């Protein structure tokens, strides 16, 4: 275990602006964020899978030295590391920079020196007034060209908007360099995106002068955001609404540029990393004569559990846990949840506090919103069995404030409901209506006792979806209609039977549908190709008869039986005399093979600390080619789920 490097001995560390405060010389070590203080310095300390690190290292070596044949260098120009936030993408690179001894030149968007904020489509802005009025993107471009062209001088001319990271104070001109782009320009703006692509592309073109080595390689770090609910179900592209998410492949627009994808950090790796961190922390404090109390193992477990694979937030939480001296203080001040179990185990209180620290706001909101809506509490509902008498009293008090709606006329009296404890106006939240719709849709059946109740909810979902059309997310009424129709239809009170709130399977289905539709495309083109090759029909060579005669829907619905027969036939024949019929693309089974199974509905259980975005794509250990039926029906293993009581606790 390497000795932890102190902030003061090291050039400034960047963890995306979080370290801004630490720029000032720090006397008190307690003020430094652990994230910065114990940044990993060797591969052993990285909580990333070995193979991922190895992938990046190999790429870097090839970029610097050209691999075994020394020819790869000009092809290794841009590497894109992607993955969710806090999966050690940047740290991996920094560790490798230390190991392979290269320096990192980094681009930062500096807002303070920003020119005119409006970026126009034309060349930089109108000439005149301000000479410094260089747009941010021009600066970016200038940075790129400069970084590419004059690598060694660059370090000395390092000025305001360009900050170079030097590993050592004495700079040798021969030192290898690498350009790191983490703080990308505003890529949602179309013209900017196009210029960005153009700039990258020009860097990819190998220099004509072969003797001259190409400029330093570029590493781009992209933090993913997950799939959004707004993505339309159609085979169409989302018209608006999906602007929050941009496809990384599209943004980069260069083939073969994508590098390894980082996955959320595995609990085991993270636990190990946190333990070493703690060991070194308390070890070093002792040297200063201070006493430190190492938090117990269970705190680490909770931190790891609630971090959702985000090591940065885990470390933050851990630091907090050590600073506030948890179990003692939490009893008095840390909110209802902790108090509820007063006299209960230490574990619950620690858990409550830590969760309050780590979870993201949005996840909390989604989880609570669903709980509120789906449990549909109304005035004078008997208090839930697990509530303490005090809470029950509070509920009664609340009930007194609710005014009953005036009774409806006889002919619509079946719509009479008691006043709801859920205030629809107050449920406005950062969750968009389509996300709420998906979650409601996934879960409502567990909360209904009768099919008539389902009818109301389904009708609401269907209506909201169809009224909004392509822009459902923007409709001002969608959210409230959804909430109110669901509340109106659910039984009161909702019987409690240990319901578990699940994540929508919709995303998963959507991905599979896209895969299958690619497969249909494969088969279509296979049909065409097949014909062009085997044109020895008795009517002479006529190519492409099938062109345009088949549509996707036709292939998907009608060709299944034939493909199945062809498969069986091929198997029989290959036993006898070797393949006779041409082999259709293997992927056709994605749409042609549909076994009936009485499996239950899958779906991960939604945990309180998850933000409802479903990560796309799986582990890359998974063989993508093996898209075979056995896998497709595969239920997903549920993650740890929380008892429904937990929803209540946090309200």
């Amino acid at each position: 275990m390497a000795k932890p490097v102190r902030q003061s001995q090291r050039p400034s560390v960047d963890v995306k602006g979080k370290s801004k405060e630490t720029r000032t010389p720090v006397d008190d070590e307690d003020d430094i964020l652990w994230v910065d203080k114990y940044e990993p310095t060797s591969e052993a300390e990285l909580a990333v899978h070995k193979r991922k690190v190895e992938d990046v290292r190999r790429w870097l070596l090839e970029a610097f030295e050209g691999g075994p044949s020394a020819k790869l260098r000009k092809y290794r120009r841009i590497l894109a590391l992607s993955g969710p936030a806090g999966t050690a993408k940047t740290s991996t690179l920094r560790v490798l920079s230390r190991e392979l001894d290269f320096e990192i030149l980094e681009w930062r968007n500096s807002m303070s020196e920003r020119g005119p904020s409006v970026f126009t489509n034309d060349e930089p802005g109108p000439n005149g007034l301000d000479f410094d009025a260089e747009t941010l993107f021009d600066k970016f471009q200038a940075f790129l060209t400069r970084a590419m062209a004059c690598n060694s001088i660059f370090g000395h001319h390092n000025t305001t908007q360009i900050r170079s990271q030097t590993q050592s104070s004495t700079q040798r001109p021969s030192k290898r360099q690498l350009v790191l782009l983490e703080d990308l320009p505003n890529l949602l703006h179309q013209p900017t995106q196009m210029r960005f692509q153009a700039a990258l592309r020009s860097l990819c073109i190998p220099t004509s002068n072969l003797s001259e080595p190409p400029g330093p390689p570029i590493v781009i770090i992209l933090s993913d955001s997950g799939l959004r609910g707004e993505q339309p179900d159609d085979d169409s592209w989302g018209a608006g609404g999906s602007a929050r998410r941009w496809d990384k492949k599209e943004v980069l627009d260069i083939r073969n540029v994508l590098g390894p994808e980082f996955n959320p950090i595995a609990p085991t790796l993270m636990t190990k990393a946190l333990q070493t961190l703690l060991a070194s922390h308390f070890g070093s404090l002792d040297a200063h004569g201070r006493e430190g109390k190492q938090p117990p193992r269970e705190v680490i477990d909770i931190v790891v559990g609630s971090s959702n694979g985000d090591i940065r937030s885990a470390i933050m939480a851990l630091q907090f846990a050590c600073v506030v001296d948890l179990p003692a203080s939490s009893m008095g001040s840390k909110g209802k949840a902790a108090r509820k179990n007063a006299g209960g185990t230490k574990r619950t209180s620690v858990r409550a506090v830590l969760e309050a620290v780590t979870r993201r706001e949005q996840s909390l909101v989604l989880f609570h919103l669903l709980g509120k809506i789906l449990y549909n509490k109304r005035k004078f509902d008997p208090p839930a069995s697990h509530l303490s008498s005090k809470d029950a009293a509070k509920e009664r008090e609340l009930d007194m404030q609710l005014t009953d709606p005036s009774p409806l006329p006889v002919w619509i009296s079946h719509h009479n409901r008691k006043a709801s404890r859920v205030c629809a106006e107050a449920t406005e939240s950062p969750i968009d209506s389509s996300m709420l719709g998906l979650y409601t849709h996934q879960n409502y059946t567990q909360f209904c006792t009768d099919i008539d109740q389902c009818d109301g909810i389904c009708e609401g979902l269907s209506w909201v979806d169809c009224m909004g059309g392509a822009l459902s997310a923007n409709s001002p009424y969608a959210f409230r209609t959804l909430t109110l129709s669901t509340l109106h239809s659910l039984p009161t009170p909702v019987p409690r039977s240990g319901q578990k709130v699940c994540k929508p399977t919709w995303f998963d289905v959507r991905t599979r549908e896209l895969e299958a539709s690619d497969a249909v495309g494969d088969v279509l083109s296979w049909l065409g190709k097949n014909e062009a090759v085997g044109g020895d029909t008795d009517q002479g060579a006529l190519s492409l008869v099938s062109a345009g005669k088949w549509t996707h829907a036709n292939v998907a619905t009608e060709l299944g039986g034939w493909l199945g027969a062809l498969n069986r036939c091929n198997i029989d024949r290959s036993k006898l005399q070797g393949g006779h019929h041409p082999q259709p693309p293997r992927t056709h089974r994605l749409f042609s093979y549909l076994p009936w199974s009485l499996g239950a509905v899958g779906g991960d259980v939604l945990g309180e600390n998850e933000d409802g975005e479903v990560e796309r794509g799986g582990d890359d250990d998974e063989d993508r080619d093996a898209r075979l039926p056995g896998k497709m029906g595969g239920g997903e293993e549920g993650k740890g789920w929380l008892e429904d009581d937990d929803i209540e606790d946090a309200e």
Partner: protein
Amino acid sequence: MSLWVDRFRPKTLDELHYHQSLSTRLKALASSGDFPHILFYGPSGAGKKTRISCTLRQLFGSGVEKLKIDQRVFVSPSRRKIEINVVQSNYHIEITPSEAGNFDRVIIQELIKEIAQTQQVDVSAKQRFKVVVINEADTLSRDAQAALRRTMEKYMSNLRIILCANSTSRLIAPIKSRCLLIRVAAPSTEEMQTVLEHVAKKLKFDLPPEASCQIAEDAAGNMRKALLVFETLKMQSPDLSGPLNIAKPDWETYCHKIADLIVQEQSPERVMQVRAKFYELLSHCIPPTIILKTVADRVVERVDEALKADVMHWAAFYELRMRMGNKKIYHLEAWVVKIMCLYKHFTYNIDMSEFD
């Protein structure tokens, strides 16, 4: 080797086996020198596309069979790239704009304008105009249809449009009124048998009449399906003797089982099971409208006479919603729940009346 459907597809109007009067009319139109815009409509597998290509051949001669497939890239107003496959010859171009989803308007406008503005340069060409074939015209969005309507008038001098659709009900009236509507009806069982026998003769083997009859009846007017089934059966048992075992497509059996699930039990848990099945179908690229139709047909078979009309009414209702909305599963499920409600109340009421 290619599919029999493609291999024995008739190339000229004379080779067509059924709807002879239609063929004569098309022939007359092609030689009249005043060829109109045409809308071919009729059920799937009736032979619309075959007739279109035969008509084209009649118009332009065999040159129209020299096809090439291009992938064209269009840029939408929001600068998104749309790739679409285009089949074309020197005389015509064939597109399926629905591949582009919501951006079909862009395709229609760009592509048609481009073709319309270039005159036919080939002096030896039989006609002064080019033909644009638009497949799956009934899935065109309103926008695209409106764009098409204008184009049809404006570029009449050097462009003719042939639309191909399953039904005219989804096309806007101005388009219908600008086209000559030609209905290609599904072939009868006897007509299909003739085609099957023709294929068998070409392949030089014997097709027992019972077999051809069975295949034709099973296909229910879908020639493409009949030929595919025929080829599949031939692959499985080369002599085609004895009672044939025509397997339904997996998805169809699946839909029937879903219908059974709906009728058996009406409860929230059952809704959940049905949803899982729908998801499975959707993830196999089965179009949601087809799912709804197949399941509804089966449900109608299984419920009481009094409920049949309602089942279909709601199917139509939610199919419309499905078109307007985004997430198909909501509407499929809403329909299922509605049917379950109806069914449950219906059986409940019967029980009550028996008590009285």
